[in-house]
């Protein structure tokens, strides 16, 4: 069938028409090869403009459409859908931006802007001529989710997904649910026993029909992609496979053991906050003088990040001790009190009210622990505000340390192709707006595996990750645009650069049979995972990968037509 191209040029009121001579461009477009219809519109995006496109597709039998107007960012979906409405495959549409790229940037050069608009339209026509009809791709999504980690984040995610009606496979490597939190006596800011929060949650999870909890389990391998993952696990001495549609990583983190710091290895009565909670689980045993040192192993050159809620933990333990033994002297040595927000600032005020003393120290003049035998008994600190040293008696010295990444992070990262950041925590897809997602589709992150996170945030992230996982499961399938990469097997040299460079883990090895005798592993692009970014195309040394909708032929046709008399071919 011969090409029949329609070109629609928008005035955008005076946004384009005020600078670009649109009638001239319309007239010019009519002279381009295979263009059978051209028109200018006051607003091509208005119902008038859209219906005109539909009518022309129908009446003039157009099989390609070019719209020259504003930005594809806001308007391409509209025009593509419009083509579809008129029965034209939406991939036979090309968008030319003569507003941002032309009238707006050349507002004072009307003639040049008009010439450039002609160039851009000519390029658009050159490209649209080479486009072929494509279909969107879709895959089914299993309505079940794998949740790795049975801490507060994983439990929250599991429970909400199950309540929403999805199947959940919950993996816990120990024999108990509750994660790090089960070692904590009381939770801030309510100072209520942890069990009050945790027990009902664990109970609901265990009893829920839609949740299967795997205790003492090891995740060995994850295969597949969104909608159809397979998790290989080892449990009860055997190996099993779980088929799931989505995955939530919630493996938590560990408390830093401050080896070599502040006499932690030297004195029995120097301990971390978590150790303090465990040691004095049943009572404070007459502690009279306690010094807590904050930012141990945090906010230093070696360990640069802030533990986010360590200050609050210290305040909690200090407050509980003061409330239990009002005459006790409890001093928190701190660098900044990270009582951010509404609740924690109030918690901080309350700690001061019960008589917890806060002394600010400088990281350059850190406190010194003095002791005799296996017990520390004094902490010397330079009081920054008073400008002199203080010597505080201490029955116990509590070191407030941050959470550090779990040791499983590295293995999991490799297994699932999910990235890890500088600090060793998992790295989310976007720090600001995609905090519980990974770049790869169908895999999500919640809780301290991402970054130290306090309880309410862990719960929130559990719920958030569940919402993300629920979306494709609710739809039952995922649809991807047709403009994705493809590998030409015969050209692939099996160098693996594309596999390394793909940010979405969409390129992988596959066994390819070239002849009955010859097979070789070559790269292949999983259409469901590919986002069409083109990195693999650019990285390929053998010219074996191409991106639909942006093939070399198409791009070179556009380039070629900008230089009169030149035609680029491969």
């Amino acid at each position, binding site marked *: 069938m011969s090409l029949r191209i329609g070109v629609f040029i928008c005035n*955008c*009121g*005076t*946004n384009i028409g005020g600078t670009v001579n649109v009638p001239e461009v319309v007239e010019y477009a009519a002279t381009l090869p295979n263009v059978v219809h051209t028109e200018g519109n*006051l*607003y091509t*995006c*208005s119902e008038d403009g859209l219906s005109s496109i539909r009518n022309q597709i129908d009446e003039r039998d157009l099989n390609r459409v070019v719209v020259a107007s504003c930005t594809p*960012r*806001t308007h391409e*979906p509209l025009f593509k859908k419009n083509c579809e409405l008129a029965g034209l495959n939406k991939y036979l549409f090309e968008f030319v931006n003569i507003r941002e790229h032309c009238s707006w940037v050349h507002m004072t050069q009307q003639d040049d802007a008009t010439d450039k608009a002609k160039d851009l339209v000519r390029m658009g026509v050159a490209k649209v001529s080479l486009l072929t009809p494509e279909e969107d791709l879709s895959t089914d999504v299993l309505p079940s989710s794998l949740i790795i980690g049975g801490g507060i984040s994983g439990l929250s995610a599991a429970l*909400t997904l199950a*309540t*929403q009606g999805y199947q959940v496979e919950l993996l816990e490597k120990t024999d108990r649910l509750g994660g790090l939190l089960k070692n904590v006596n009381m*939770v801030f800011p*309510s100072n209520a026993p942890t069990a009050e*929060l945790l027990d*009902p949650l664990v109970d609901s999870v265990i009893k829920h029909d839609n949740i299967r909890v795997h205790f003492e389990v090891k995740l060995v391998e994850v295969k597949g992609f969104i909608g159809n993952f397979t998790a290989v696990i080892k449990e009860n001495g055997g190996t099993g496979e779980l088929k799931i549609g989505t995955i939530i990583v919630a493996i938590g983190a560990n408390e830093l053991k401050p080896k070599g710091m502040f006499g932690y290895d030297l004195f029995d009565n120097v301990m971390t906050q978590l150790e303090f909670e465990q040691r004095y689980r049943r009572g404070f045993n007459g502690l009279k003088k306690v010094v807590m040192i904050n930012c141990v192993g945090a*906010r230093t050159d070696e360990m*640069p*990040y*802030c533990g986010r809620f360590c200050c609050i933990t210290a305040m909690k333990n200090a407050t509980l001790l003061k409330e239990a033994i009002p005459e006790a002297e409890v001093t928190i040595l701190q660098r*900044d*009190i*990270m*009582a*951010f*927000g*509404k*609740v*924690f*600032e*109030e918690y901080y*005020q309350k700690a001061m009210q019960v008589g917890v003393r806060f002394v600010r120290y400088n990281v350059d003049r850190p406190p010194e622990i003095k002791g005799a035998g296996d017990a520390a008994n004094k902490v010397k600190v330079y009081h*920054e*505000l008073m*400008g002199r040293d203080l010597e505080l008696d201490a029955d116990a010295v509590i070191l407030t340390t941050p959470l550090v990444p779990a040791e499983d992070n590295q293995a999991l990262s490799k297994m699932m192709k999910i990235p890890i950041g500088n600090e060793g925590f998992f790295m989310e897809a976007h*720090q*600001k*707006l995609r*905090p*519980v997602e990974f770049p790869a589709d169908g895999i999500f992150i919640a809780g301290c595996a991402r*970054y130290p996170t306090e*309880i*309410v*945030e862990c*719960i*929130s*992230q*559990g*719920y*958030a*990750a*569940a*919402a*993300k996982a629920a*979306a*494709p499961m*609710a*739809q039952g399938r995922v649809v991807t645009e047709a403009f994705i990469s493809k590998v030409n097997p015969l050209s692939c040299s099996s160098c693996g650069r594309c596999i390394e460079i793909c940010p979405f883990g969409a390129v992988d090895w596959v066994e390819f049979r070239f002849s009955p005798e010859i097979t070789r592993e070559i790269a292949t692009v999983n259409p469901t995972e590919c986002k069409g970014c083109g990195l693999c195309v650019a990285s390929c040394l053998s010219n074996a990968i191409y991106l639909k909708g942006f093939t070399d032929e198409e791009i070179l046709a556009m380039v070629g037509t900008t230089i009169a008399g030149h035609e680029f071919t491969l």
Partner: protein
Amino acid sequence: MSQKAALVIGGGIAGMQASIDLANMGIKVYLMEKKPSIGGRMAQLDKTFPTNDCSMCILAPKMIECANHENVDLLTYSELSELTGSSGDFKAKIIRKARFIDEDKCVGCGECIEGCPITVTDEFNAGLGNRKAIYKYFPQAVPSTFAIDRRGTAPCKTACPAHISVQGYVALIAQGRFQEALKLIKEENPLPAICGRVCHHPCESACTRSQVDEPVAIDFIKRFVADLDLKSETRYLPQIKKKRAHKVAIIGAGPAGLSCAYYLAKEGYQVTIYEKLPVTGGMLSVGIPEYRLPRDIINAEVQVIRDMGVKIKTGVDIGKDITIEQLREEGYNAIFLGIGAHKCTSLNIEGENLEGVYPGVDFLREVNLGKQVSLGDRIAVVGGGNVAMDTVRTALRLGAKEPFIIYRRSLEEMPANEEEVEECEEEGIPIYPLTNPKRIIGENGRVKAIECLKMKLGEPDESGRRRPIPIEGSEFIIEVDGVVPAIGQESDWSCLGPESACTLSNWGTMNVDPITLQTDDSDIFAGGDAVTGPKTVIEAIEAGKQAAISIDRFIRGVNLREGREREWEPVEDVPTEGYDHIPRTRMPRLEPGDRANNFQEVQLGFSEEQAVTEAKRCISCGICSECYTCAEVCKAEAVDFAQRDREVTVNVGAIVLATGFDLYDVSPLMEYGWGRIENVITAMQFERMICASGPTTGHLKRPSDGKEPKRLGFIQCVGSRDVRHMRYCSAVCCMHATKEAILAHEHYPELTSTIFYMDMRAVGKGFQEYVRRAKTEYEVEYIRTRPGRVTLNEENQNPVIHYEDTINREFRAREFDMVILSQALIPTESNISIAKRLGVELDEFGFIATPEGLSNPFGTTKEGVFGCGFCQSPMDVPDSVVRASGAASKVAEVLAQHS
């Protein structure tokens, strides 16, 4: 039954995220936002910490996703009015505020902006810059639709009997757009030069500016543009619509008749005016003296009407020369009676028939028609209206030595224009208030004296004025040569023959339908003094215009009444604070000595400068001035002033609250000088300033002199962590200030910043690294202290921060080019009304309360209603989007449980 739909309240990042997540789960979402665009606070930010991503670049795709998602219905510019039902099945009533722009038609091109004469402070730019009354909330707004900021119709327009867009033409004149102003006036009033001289201007009585100082001199401003047009080479002629063959006869060439003719001619009708007098203008010509309304002005405005094709036949006495029946036979499809009220009401006292008693209107008519009338030297004019004033002043000009006024009420009750009373006094004419004639004493059949009674004021009568009561025994006699009664007029209906079915009221006025002005005879319409009794010019003009509308409909055979019963409600709650007192511009007048013996115009008119200056005093009560310039330029025909707020009801299973935050007003923190020291600004103002799409296109400029600052001082916790203001920590300011300091240095490598803080709460992922880089790479200095105050160095307008150096324990003062206050962020005020309507509780600060604490961070006090983001507690963007997605899960639970 459960509704598989959810309502999200608040279109900031949290609300958008919750909506997208829900929509992706296949749940129908109604995303309601009170502003004209979604985007929320994040849209105001330049960059985001700690990655320095362009805020809009990461936000816009989310906004577009919301707009394009098939499961999301955007309800922008909307507010919740009522919620009924319970979890799983709520009914929410939502008011969709009128944008006055058709969202489906508006393509967001922005051509409307330029013509809009109204400029208001741009809240999106945190008050640093202005926008127009017609505006897009910000360039990337979604929906990409404009809105008109209309508080309501200004009181001047509602008070004007003709409902001229007064604020509109005043605004246009303030911009020097005189011709557009005149065109706008003529939409409602074809005789502005006349009205600009003699109108009783109820617009000015209603003017809100009088609450500040004095009303705007609206009438004089109008006169200026009208005169300008009459003096110009080509006068403004309205576009005449398609010519029609239908004929209309108008009886009377007074203001009512002329107005009726103008608007009918504009519609294309063939109009003929029949006038009994030899001149046009009716009472304008024969009732109002020339020194108030020069004849060439009347003639000029009448000429415009003639130029539109209207035929005027003077000296034709209907009923005598030609009858109504004959007019009908000549093919007139409709007739308008605007005959006015030219017959003087008698005093009904003894001696009224004596020689030397001359009714006021007759006197004025004779004089105005050029006849010589002499009444002698001492002339008593009885009455307090404009006719009385005109009569007495005319008498003076004709040589009477001692003309004076007798009026039965007090000066305050006088119905005459204030200026006329004033001018009368200037001319030395005595006014005797609280005096009523009892009888006229004659000698030889001629007036000799007038006996009067002293009056006092009693209770108000139905006119609202205090009723005059005679004081018994207070009679006294004044010797006079003439008496002129000027206490009222009535109509002369000799024009009506038996062929018309019209009826008259007991007062001798024509009975008409009050809205259509149709008489009991269907093809006859009437208006002006003939219907109302003696009233004002502008009321007659309005009647003529309304009759024209009726006649057009009558001829076209459509319903006369439909859509015309409109109540004009003036806008209320117009803020009048913060305006400097500017005196009303005085009308220049001819000196009393130069005018008492002639008929030259007394009021000389405003100069262009005076008109513009005076117009600028308008405080834009309605915000939008209703000048309709936007409607005229909009090629997409999207402007729709008839739009009204409308209510929609949505059925949803659950609700997510994401109302975000407001900025704390830092002006009560006097010690930091915001509002007093120009170069002290808020963090949001700084953000808009450094943003490329902001009012300074990304250039840092000191408000005092526009100079580029070299040293910035940031004060943290302004209103936060402060028992006098907000006790809590606002959670984002430490990083926000750090970001701003980094950006400033990126823009200007010479620039250094100092951040005065209490605790550097850099607790999020990558935040510590961000602060470290600020110190090492961007020359940001951090000083731990809470500054005591900010003073001003008068010489260079630099703010000086006074603080205690807590390391060296010394008091210090540091001078900066600009100081930025990290203001507290507070729950939105709208939480209060939303909480009330939803039945959820707020905490002591106004945040949405979360009663279940840790076990349900999204829960509110109402089942099925969830909170997320800053409206629950201060938090940054990632935390907000986490909460938003989490709340989406909660909604999904509710919908799953109820299905």
